[in-house]
């Protein structure tokens, strides 16, 4: 198996689907001639031509709206937002039309919107957000947040196959930092199936995206104190693997929910609420949430570090749970 970066794995999955299925096309700002702001679609226009790799104007409304129409007419569009933050311009088309079209009229809208998300590089408030929770609240959308190159490819293929609108959050911090073996052949990674990133007995951490690695480093620290931490990587937020989370919560009886998005109304709240509803009698400590504070993402590097949950924050939270 070749070793691919997280970014290469996304390209690889996308290229494979475009070769395999002529209905798949790509549209976004600078995705064609320039190869995309992060070069995910580098070389795509040469291979597939300008009609399947479309450079769009700076108008997310037009991109998502165009995709919705194309999908209704039978195509399989994959839109790229240059940064996940800009999806708010496409909200109306996505939320009012794409998410409800099948319910309302019975016509599926199989679109994928790729959303480079996450901070850690001083991108400031417009280029660093993780807005997955806003969309998790919208019935009719599916939400995917891969953490590993293997999942990045498999989940992208599943997203393209899926008959529903899928928001595919790809974490910019992982693009070139995470590298691992990815099967060359085509495969799909199922939605709604969590991955056990690390097995443990004493505390469960439920997380996704780049926070999987933060949690893992913290877990290594805790191992020194003989505390064994289980890390569940949800992989998809909608649908999410309630069963795996509840089983792990019942096993360890102590749970931390960790995400990079802001705290209030973050998806961690949904997870915590579900655990207390369905596994209350298995809990040995209050469920702990670690998330970003309720502010825009700061630009200044020290402030950004204070904003995004760091290894030390997670380790401190885990110790608190261990000692409870």
């Amino acid at each position: 198996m070749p070793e691919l970066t997280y970014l290469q794995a996304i390209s690889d999955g996308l290229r494979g689907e475009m070769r395999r299925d002529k209905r798949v096309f790509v549209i976004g700002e600078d995705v064609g001639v320039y190869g995309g702001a992060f070069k995910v679609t580098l070389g795509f226009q040469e291979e597939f031509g300008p009609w399947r790799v479309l450079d769009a104007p700076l108008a997310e409304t037009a991109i998502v709206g165009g995709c919705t129409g194309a999908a209704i007419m039978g195509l399989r569009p994959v839109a790229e937002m240059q940064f996940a933050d800009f999806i708010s311009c496409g909200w109306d088309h996505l939320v009012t039309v794409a998410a409800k079209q099948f319910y309302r009229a019975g016509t599926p809208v199989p679109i994928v919107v790729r959303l480079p998300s996450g901070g850690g590089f001083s991108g400031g408030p417009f280029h660093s957000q993780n807005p997955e929770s806003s969309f998790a609240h919208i019935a009719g959308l599916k939400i995917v947040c891969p953490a590993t190159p293997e999942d990045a490819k498999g989940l992208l293929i599943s997203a393209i196959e899926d008959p529903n609108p899928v928001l595919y959050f790809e974490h910019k911090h992982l693009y070139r930092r995470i590298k691992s073996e990815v099967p060359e052949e085509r495969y799909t990674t199922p939605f709604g199936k969590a991955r056990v990133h690390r097995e443990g007995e004493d505390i469960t951490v439920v997380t996704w995206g780049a926070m999987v690695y933060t949690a893992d480093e913290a877990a290594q620290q805790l191992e020194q104190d003989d505390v064994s931490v289980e890390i569940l990587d949800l992989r998809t937020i909608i649908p999410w693997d309630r069963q795996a989370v509840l089983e792990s919560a019942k096993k360890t009886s102590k749970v931390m929910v960790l995400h990079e998005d802001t705290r209030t109304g973050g998806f961690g709240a949904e997870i915590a609420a579900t655990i207390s509803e369905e596994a209350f009698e298995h809990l040995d400590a209050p469920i702990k949430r670690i998330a970003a504070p309720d502010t825009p993402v700061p630009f200044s590097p020290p402030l950004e570090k204070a904003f995004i949950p760091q290894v030390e924050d997670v380790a401190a939270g885990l110790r608190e749970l261990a000692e409870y």
Partner: protein
Amino acid sequence: MATPTAVDVVMPQMGVSVSEGTITKWLKQEGEEIQADEPLLEISTDKVDTEVPSPGSGVVQQILAQEGETVPVGQRIAVIGAAGAEVAEETPPAPATQDAAAEANAAASAETQIPTDQGVEEPVPAAVEPQRAEEQPAPPPAPAQEPVDDGATNGKSFVSPVVARIASEHGVDVSQVPGTGRGGRVTKKDILGFVESGGQAAPAPAQPEAQPQAAAPAAPPEAPATPQQPAAPTPPPSQPAPAAQAPQPAAEAQPGESEEPMTAMRKGIAEHMRRSLDTSAHVTSAIEIDMSRVVAIREKLKPEYQKGYGVNPTYLIFVARAVVETLRDYPWINGEIRGDKIVTRNYANLGFAVELADGKGLIVPVVKHAEGLNLLGMAQAVTDIAERARNKQLTPDEVQGGTFTITNPGGYGTFHGTPVISQPQAAILGTYAVVKRPWVIQDELGKDVIAIRPIMNLTLTYDHRLVDGALAGRFLQSLQQKLETWGESDY
């Protein structure tokens, strides 16, 4: 894919009743590379002898238990490290992360940071390193301490939901349990430890559930056996004070007698059989079945099954199919007493007692979800597990989770028996030899005549705590009806 961090290999759970396993052979040595799922070692437990696959890819960093050693289920027996990490880290992940910890505690000097960078480099985005260095001056533990004090005020009295549940299930008074949590709070671990140790402080009348545990001391019979194994370097696992058993081991082999060590499997069988008789109220009912129709259909199917699928439609298979159909109407016979609850299910996992070569042991592999199998499927499933049981190729999963068991001692012509229930099931069915017997039937005029009929006896041994005699009788009658009226197209 390479395992990004060290992975622990633990002694696997090989069956519900199994609590420990013996390492018979390491197939990889320290420093050798291994792929995920590649066999790492062989173990022997009282239920299964099997290979244990590696849980991850990388290098065998450490072997923590030697061949011949017996270790409890769940204990770490080896560590598989990242492929790149190899021998330098053979005194394994500890140094790297210890450095990191030491560094964090002791507001590190510049030199200590260098090893840290190397140690942590693998899975971590490099950018994270400098952050940690910056954060050290302001140690984050501070906020964590405040709540600790808060907790202390209500610590002893606060009972968490899980502790409350365990306490009520086991009838434990939480105030009797020593707490190690914040402010002396009783944690889940505390109460589980308390219950497992037999709840020393609870001399109160033992709950029914306590019995299986009380049976654990019955294990001491193992103690006598172990010392006689000359080469066994294993100290008998924590046997507190089996004083009562002490006299027995003294007996040594007399002239004319010879001794052999008890295998792990034999010890397991011994313990389980005794415990089952101590747990369930065994009662046996028997019924005679006219197998004429089954015999006829079997003759027809035999060539087809053998030629097409390489399996034999044995009488056992017909009985098993009929049992699955019948169990659907008798959920308690497919059920279990769990605590003070009765558990029933919408599926049937059928255990089949399989004898190993030379009477050296018995194993009960389980056909899961037998309700989904037709006659051919059942034949294939039973042939497969029986064969793999004899070749010691069963996986731990395949010997647990049974909900009902069939044992077939009829192969040697026996016509009756009273088998022992496999705990925690509610019943076990015995099948016996099919014998031609003079049988009173009615001819077409309704007159009694004597005919020669192939008759098979079936016994149902059931736990009278859950299953009443009348229910067992109806179950057997219903089973009889299915077998005696088996149609050409029934499968």
